[in-house]
């Protein structure tokens, strides 16, 4: 874990106005694992006050990539960076996906910006079958960049299957049913909750990457609790997660 003064290299606009930034950040590049995130200082002033958490989207050599859309003031400021700017990044943080062990098929379920961690994970899945169920409210909110074997769903039917990606995942059982598969998911809480119910009911091997408001990102503020399913209080999303076994948590 580092506080790295990274060098901002470039910003690229992907389809649907998604931003992909590339930073030169050797320490983080060398140590990051898929599913981990970084907490980024988006400005050089004290405003906005808090860092902003972003999944490690990809790593190439000593460069790290982050993917985002303009959400509020913080992400807007990020889009104003220019090549050569210093970017203060804390990371890599949290526990990433467990991509080891016995499975031959990886099923990715990504909603909206939940696609962000998967280009990096995909790299670590060489030799496996991969299916990526990518959903969005409508066509321009579906993010396929860096993903393989993409199956699209949209709430409004403007592209692919009309419905949620969890529904589509349920419909396409033939793709994974008879394989040793593991589900990797990231997206809004309602999506994760639906998937959680399904995976627990069917006893699927599944990992959920959860989002929530954070201050520190490394366990000192206690600001990011998620309820434990055993009734014994809370886990911390930043430290104990952001990736959880669906059986361990309650949304």
């Amino acid at each position, binding site marked *: 874990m580092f506080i790295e003064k990274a060098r901002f290299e470039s910003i690229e606009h992907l389809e649907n106005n998604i931003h992909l930034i590339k930073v030169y950040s050797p320490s983080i590049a060398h140590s990051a694992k898929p599913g981990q995130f970084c907490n980024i200082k988006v400005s050089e002033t*004290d405003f906005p006050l808090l860092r902003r958490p972003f999944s490690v989207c990809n790593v190439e050599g000593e460069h790290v990539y982050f993917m985002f859309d303009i959400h509020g003031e913080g992400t807007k400021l990020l889009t104003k960076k220019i090549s050569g700017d210093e970017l203060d990044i804390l990371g890599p943080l949290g526990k990433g996906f467990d991509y080891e062990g016995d499975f031959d098929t990886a099923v990715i379920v990504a909603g909206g910006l939940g696609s962000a961690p998967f280009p990096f994970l995909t790299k670590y899945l060489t030799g496996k079958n991969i299916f990526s169920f990518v959903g969005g409210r409508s066509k321009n909110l579906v993010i396929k960049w860096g993903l393989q074997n993409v199956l699209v769903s949209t709430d409004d039917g403007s592209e692919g299957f009309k419905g949620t990606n969890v529904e589509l995942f349920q419909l396409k059982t033939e793709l994974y049913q008879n394989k040793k598969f593991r589900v990797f998911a990231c997206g809004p809480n309602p999506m994760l909750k639906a998937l959680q119910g399904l995976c627990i009911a069917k006893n699927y091997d599944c990992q959920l990457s959860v989002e929530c408001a954070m*201050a520190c990102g*490394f366990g000192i*503020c206690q600001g990011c609790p998620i309820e434990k399913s055993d009734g014994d*209080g809370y886990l911390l999303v930043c430290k104990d997660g952001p990736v959880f076994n669906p059986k361990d948590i309650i949304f």
Partner: protein
Amino acid sequence: MKIDLSITIGKLKLKNPVLLASGTVGYGNEIAQYTDLSKLGGIVTKSLSLKPRKGNPPQRIVETPSGMLNAIGLANVGVEAFIKEKIPFLKELDTTIICNIAASTIEEYVECTKILEPEDTIKAFEINVSCPNVKEGGLEFGNDTKAVGRITEQVRAVTKKPLIIKLSPNVSRISDFAKVIKQEGGDAVSAINTLVGTSFNIMTRRPKIKNITGGLSGPAIKPVALAKVLEISRNVDIPIIGIGGIMNWMDVVEFMIAGASAIQLGTVNFINPNAGVEIIEGLKSYCEKTSLTKLSGLTASYQI
């Protein structure tokens, strides 16, 4: 130039005035990955209660202009687990450990202190009478000079360690509290804890913080904290630990001028966990530039 950064608060000696504030440094272990705690004056551990507390349900934090609201709800491991699981790590740190205690009743404060008193690792107690995020006790104590007086008196009776009371800013005259604390044998006051605040989601019309209100911290509150420190300093002869919105060494100098003997860093740790060490460097340069050989000479040096 040799500069003396050391500070004394009653019987408590610190190598420098920079402490990390309760609730913003956990029990020291996570932040140690990012900073050298041995360079700091000390750390104040997360408020401990007699029994472990799970804390409040999410959402616990929200960002505000130059600040943040939190309603953690004093999530902590409880005194027993603290002694067993946390002290061994803290003991090895070459910095002063101050133990912060929160409670719902006077008896609980006394009980906690008694249990912790034998621990040599703990060099002082900071009594939190001012957490705005717990229903029983907490804020209500902090707003009542008589209650604060009684807590000070009774905790004083069971500890020989330096006793610091952490004050609430949500009162009209904070110096009245400092006066009572001095009378009852408190060694110092910490000022300030967070200001009560809230924030709403304009679509759901619900408070963004599940607990409805939270405590406001960060640079937004710095001017208020400075005014509280100044008020105490001008009215009561008691050492003050200044807290509230400190981001850099300039802010520390301001707090010391206003009356603080030492300071605590809170929210800034979340943004820059190495802030304490950087601030100490900044304080050294400031002393050099202004030919100050003893940093403690700054305390209450306001020109009014």
